[in-house]
């Protein structure tokens, strides 16, 4: 019966209430710092920069009081894929793709071309993956969903001047997160209903994927239609209450950045800039 237990596996809002320094940061500052660090990780391709980033990301974990085992929880199932990807990159990354870099070749046989650029790419990709994994865990474990959406909205707020729908987009995000558990329950109910009518939800083999998809339709179609019907009800309810989004709305929670938050932001910005603009030799 485990296959019907959908809502139990959903880990949205995996917030751990630990009250650490990172937990207490202003969500706007936290999101900005997160974005800066993600940018630094995404665009750093040198060994040195990635070693520093790896160290810094792990050094941040104690500040959040999150157990390291939680922060690395996604790593174990990913190890085979990481290794496979690294093997492909090392074997197949030919020097012409490296964009004029000088690569020294180690080994060449048939289609296999192993060179220093491929090895660097594989090492950097793996390091990048671990860095981003820890960083996203830090953000999601230390910030509630409410804080995240409010922070997103207020960060995007200056863009409303250019007719960018910041408040509206934040509301869609809140709605989406709000409805995930509801739809999970609904999906469970649909699955049980179909199985009780004799539907087979099991695997039918990879070659018969069209039949497999058609077997899924009795689950997917009611799920979508139920969702759209719920949307119509919500639209009616909101319009009946004269909901109007935009500038004039006020918030129950007002965010206030502390001096320490600004200090963190300045530090992160300087660090990210250093990672991005210092031309590391290795």
């Amino acid at each position, binding site marked *: 019966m485990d296959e019907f237990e*959908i809502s139990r596996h959903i880990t949205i809002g995996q917030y751990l209430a630990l009250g650490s320094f990172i937990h207490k940061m202003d969500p706007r500052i936290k999101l900005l710092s997160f974005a800066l660090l993600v940018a630094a990780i*995404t665009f750093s391709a040198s060994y040195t920069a990635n070693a520093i980033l790896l160290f810094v990301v792990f050094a941040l974990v104690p500040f959040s009081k999150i157990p390291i085992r939680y922060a690395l929880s996604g790593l174990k*199932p990913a190890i085979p894929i990481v290794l496979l990807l690294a093997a492909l990159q090392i074997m197949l990354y030919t020097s012409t793709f490296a964009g004029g870099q000088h690569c020294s070749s180690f080994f060449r046989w048939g289609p296999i071309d192993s060179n220093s650029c491929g090895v660097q790419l594989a090492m950097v990709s793996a390091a990048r993956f671990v860095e981003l994994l820890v960083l996203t865990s830090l953000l999601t474990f230390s910030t509630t969903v409410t804080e995240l959406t409010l922070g997103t909205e207020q960060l995007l707020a200056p863009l409303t001047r250019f007719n960018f729908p910041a408040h509206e*987009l934040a509301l869609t995000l809140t709605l*989406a997160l709000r409805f995930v558990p509801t739809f999970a329950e609904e999906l469970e109910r649909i699955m049980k209903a179909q199985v009780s009518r004799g539907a087979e939800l099991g*695997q039918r083999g990879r070659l018969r*994927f069209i039949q497999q998809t*058609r077997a899924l339709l009795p689950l*997917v179609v009611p799920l979508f239609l139920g969702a759209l019907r719920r949307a119509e009800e919500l*639209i009616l309810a909101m319009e009946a209450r004269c909901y109007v989004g935009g500038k004039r709305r006020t918030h129950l929670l007002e965010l206030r950045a502390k001096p320490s938050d600004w200090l963190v932001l300045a530090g992160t910005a300087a660090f990210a800039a250093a990672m991005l603009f210092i031309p590391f030799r290795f």
Partner: protein
Amino acid sequence: METTAQPVFSVRRIVVTGVLGAIAILLGYTRLGFIPVPTPAGNATIMHIPAIIGGILEGWPVGAAIGTIFGIFSFLQSTTPIFKDPLVAILPRIFIGITPYFVYRGLRRVNRAVGFAIAAAILILVGVFSYDMLTFVPKDLVFDFGGDPNSPWIHLTGQTARLIYQILGALLMVLGFGAAGTFAYFVQRNQMELLAIGTAAVVGTLTNTVLVLTMIVVRGYLTADVALGIGITQGIPEIIVAVLVTVAVVAAWKGIESGAGGGARKV
């Protein structure tokens, strides 16, 4: 002065985006989002379908917003290195819901004559192109994947290259004629609405596959030839799955009779 112009996001658009975004997130958490198929990746995804449906039903801003929500969550939840990169996971996903909207809008009001003209145009274009590929094979044809010019593996020349070229031509001919035939069949039965929905699903899925693989190559995770192989093998089943699901859902929601071939069935 206060403007009273309609905002881009009306209450309707906000709510539909939120609700379909929730389904996109939910599909990522369950096995339901992944349909086993005979390809190297092993699964065809249906997680991008809410973005396509949102684009068709409520316009391109809704499709773009749902695509972005899907992208953000596939970035945050991902435990595969390739998709733990915002440039691969988020950026291409914004466009999944935009292209289907324009295809749908462009096709649904087309009359029979124009419909047959489009089918004939596909037929002639593909026919001439693939006939050309089958008969006039360039003599000094080279498939170069950017490797060592002395290696027979990645630098295909002579008979092998010509054979691959002809096989590709034949494949293109079969796929193109099939597409033109299906198109004409739906025009003949005057089911332009269904045809528009199905074509929108094809285009939306192609947008996802092509843009994601392009970013993967640009970011250097896979080489261009590996990505092309994945794109062809993964793209075809994903398109079939997306058409089945999208047509079923949109037709059922709009109350369109879809007849026997696929589409909404009584549940």
